[in-house]
């Protein structure tokens, strides 16, 4: 379970202070698929980075499975990210000189584990996203959809309980977007919590719940049916 308590994030000082997140409260249950929507500059990416243990809030607390994340030291937070979180980035952020298998293995690089076991886990993750047989390819040798799926394989390889996705279909066509969303949906059915920032109502339709953000504040929370109706 992830709990945000009075989260506030401000940048700058004095008159130049900008409030990106303003006293935000939320609870995300284990196994929930939550979409975060809002206009550009609304604060959704800042919120996701706070949820990702990478951007300390100015005020408030983020509690995940009873751990007050921002009470941890920087290195402990790195350990937390490795154990609890999987990231899927809009721009994929695959390492260009590593094969798909090696990219998928990255989160395991700092873990003491036999190399063979790491390889098996990476292959299973790639197979789970439909990329079996393409293990040895480099990122520039595959399509955008395959890159996104590799990024998802990397996010799930160590089976984290939470996946944070930042516009995972932002660079994909509608057919490929659908495939990626189906993939995230399957992960959610397996019990993984998914938090996804998106502009797309179509993608938001896959979420159990939508957190609508405007001017750094949570303005509305809607269920799946309402969102699907809006998308239609």
């Amino acid at each position, binding site marked *: 379970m992830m709990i945000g308590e009075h989260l506030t994030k401000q940048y700058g000082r004095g008159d130049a202070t900008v409030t990106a997140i303003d006293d935000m409260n939320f609870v995300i249950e284990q196994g929930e698929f939550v979409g975060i929507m809002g206009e550009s500059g609304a604060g959704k990416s800042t919120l996701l980075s706070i949820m990702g243990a990478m*951007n300390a809030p100015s005020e408030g607390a983020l509690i995940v499975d009873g751990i007050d994340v921002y009470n941890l030291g920087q290195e402990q937070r790195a350990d937390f990210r490795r154990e609890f979180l999987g990231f899927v*980035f809009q721009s994929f952020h695959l390492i260009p000189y590593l094969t798909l298998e090696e990219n998928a293995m990255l989160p395991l690089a700092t873990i003491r584990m036999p190399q063979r076991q790491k390889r098996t886990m990476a292959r299973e993750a790639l197979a789970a996203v439909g990329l079996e047989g393409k293990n040895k390819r480099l990122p520039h040798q595959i399509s955008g959809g395959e890159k996104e799926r590799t990024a998802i394989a990397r996010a799930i390889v160590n089976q984290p309980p939470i996946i944070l996705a930042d516009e995972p279909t932002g660079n994909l066509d509608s057919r490929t977007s659908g495939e990626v969303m189906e993939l995230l949906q399957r992960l959610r059915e397996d019990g993984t919590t998914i938090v996804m920032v998106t502009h797309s109502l179509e993608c938001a339709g896959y979420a159990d719940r939508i957190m609508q953000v405007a001017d750094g504040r949570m303005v509305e929370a809607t269920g799946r049916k309402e969102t699907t109706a809006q998308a239609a």
Partner: protein
Amino acid sequence: MTLKQIAIQNLLRRKGKAMLILLGLVLGIGTVITVISFSDAVTGDINHKLEKYGANILIVPRTENLSLNYGGIQMGGISFDMQELRESDLTAVKGIKYAKNIAAMGPMALGAVRIKERPVMLAGVDFEEALILKPWWKIDGVQPVAGGLLAGAEAARVLGLAVGDSVTIAGKKQSVTGLLKPTGSQDDQLLFTTLPAAQDLLDMPGRVSMVEVAALCTACPIEEMVKQIGAVLPGAKVMAIQQVVKGRMETLSQFKKLSFGVSVIIILIGSLVVLVTMTGSVRERKEEIGVFRAIGFRKQHVMRIILMEATLIAISAGIVGYLLSMGATRVALLFFADNPHVALPWNLTLAAGALIMSLVVGVSASIYPALTAARMDPNDALRAL
């Protein structure tokens, strides 16, 4: 996938950057090793040549003698209490701390004899050692064995001696086996024979008048050697021929200073090349480092990747630098050394030095870029989140 594999894969992918760092280090390390090995080779050669100047330490019996000799005019001397120098005592010199620096030690028995009614100085020497101490000697005929004489050029002219002539000294017949070509030194005035023959003819059994010593002093203080010899020969007066020694040491010192100065500058340039290239590389990899940090790499993991890359390049640079420097030294010797055939052996110590130096320069110049990488805020690095 391990951190080491990430480092290796990155180097293989970014061959251009890796080669630039390698080149910077190879140039730095190679130049330093070239300068050192060239300096060592030339120094050895100079030292060898300087040895040709002859003895640089003189051992004479301790005496209260006041010399009445100035500008080549000999007025005789007044001797009080002259001590003997015994040939058997000289073995003690071989036991001093710097004994291995002694290239040659030539005992000499000196005394006046009369030949054809003329007084002449007879010198008994160990010809094997004498030829090392006086490599400029050129002999017409052969060097004497027991009972033979080698006549200095001036002595032969004044006494009218030629190879094959016989003379009588102290009632014993001696034949002239060789003539010494003019040397321009006092040797031209002397007659030489073997040390035992001279001791017999001069009635000084087991005694010597003086000892000439040639010391190889690239790494030893000559004054220290003088002290050590003086300590084992208390009845002797040991003197360093300062002019030769000082000149020799000064030449070597100049070479070392030059080598050191050039080395420091080259190493600084090599470090800067590594620092600038590594820092640029880290900036280019901002996104990649952001991903590492986001997925749970600790700061030390990121540092380890950067430093591992630097270590791998530095090891290669150390090996390549040493091999290239040996080639460069051979070429440099051809152009800049008086003797292009100076020995240049493979030096394991220097090779290890090159490797260590490369590692120290490569890794230390990469610490700042590695710290910069480790301190990168994953949020800033990625921006997408």
